[in-house]
């Protein structure tokens, strides 16, 4: 299957995603510059982490207006698979493909470290090969990962199993103690209603090889691969 990685001038995890898809997953992949609009022959779009346009105003705020995002929205609305990681998640929120908003971590600091997330919904194209309630060891690296959503919408997310990942401890316990950034209900990743768009703060591309300390992130990319093959 063909992966496309969106490149904004301030993207800085684009190379890392590219490497995992091409050299670890051994799948065709290409970069897509933010001023382009074409997404021909792409099966899955990755919006990588970074600082899109510097993010001086608000994370992802300016990326929303880039030419490529209009195409991505269109792609998603046609059922194409989209995964937004970190800044990519923030952009998906800004463009409205996913609900809610991000604000600063409660500690008011950038946090880069390995954390654990609980796979709450394995019935998605992104988590299909994860075990039930599997705990993934995976790093975060962000300043604004404090996910906010109003209560009514939160209930909607909960009721429809749209919360895919929650921050937890090594044993899978979800609590305030295991919440690194203050996110509502420990939310680390959510999907849209249709189930084809995932936004997550942790970085699966940083934990896709054992020598980096964990290969749990690869489960997400492999799930996508499996789902796509199944579709065809």
């Amino acid at each position, binding site marked *: 299957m063909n992966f496309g990685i969106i490149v904004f001038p301030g993207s800085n995890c684009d190379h890392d995603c590219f490497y995992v898809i091409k050299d670890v997953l051994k799948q065709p992949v290409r970069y897509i510059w933010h001023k382009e609009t074409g997404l021909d022959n792409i099966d899955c779009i990755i919006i990588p982490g970074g600082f899109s346009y510097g993010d001086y105003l*608000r994370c992802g705020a*300016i990326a*929303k207006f880039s030419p490529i995002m209009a195409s991505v929205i269109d792609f998603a609305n046609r059922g194409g698979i989209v995964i937004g990681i970190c800044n990519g998640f923030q952009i998906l929120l*800004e463009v409205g493909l996913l609900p809610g*908003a991000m*604000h600063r971590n409660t500690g*008011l600091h950038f946090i880069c470290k390995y954390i654990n997330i609980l796979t709450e919904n394995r019935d998605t194209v992104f988590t299909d090969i994860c075990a039930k309630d599997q705990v993934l060891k995976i790093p975060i690296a962000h300043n604004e990962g404090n996910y906010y959503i109003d209560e009514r919408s939160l209930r909607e997310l909960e009721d429809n199993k749209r919360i895919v990942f929650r921050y937890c401890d090594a044993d899978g316990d979800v609590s305030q103690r295991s919440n690194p950034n*203050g996110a509502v209900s420990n939310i680390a990743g959510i999907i849209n209603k249709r189930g084809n768009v995932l936004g997550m703060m942790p970085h699966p591309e940083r934990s896709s090889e054992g020598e980096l300390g964990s290969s749990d992130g690869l489960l997400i990319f492999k799930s996508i691969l499996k789902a796509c093959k199944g579709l065809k």
Partner: protein
Amino acid sequence: MLEAKVYITLKKTVADPQGLTIKHALESLEYKEVKQVRIGKLVILQLDMNDEEEAKKRLDQMCQKLLANSIIEDYTFELAPVN
């Protein structure tokens, strides 16, 4: 020429950890009268136009489209002529 000052703050219902931190700092400096601190952004724009009504309309659009995120932020603005 008009100058607009756009103030963007977190909505009252949204926690503001930066504001809270500053409130604690002020309290520890014995400014006990401080009951609330909210942090925001100030954006100053110079507009090459003189019609204030039209300017307000366009500023509203700018705020909604880009400057503020309506899910978590409120905005207000002031408008004044400049030379």
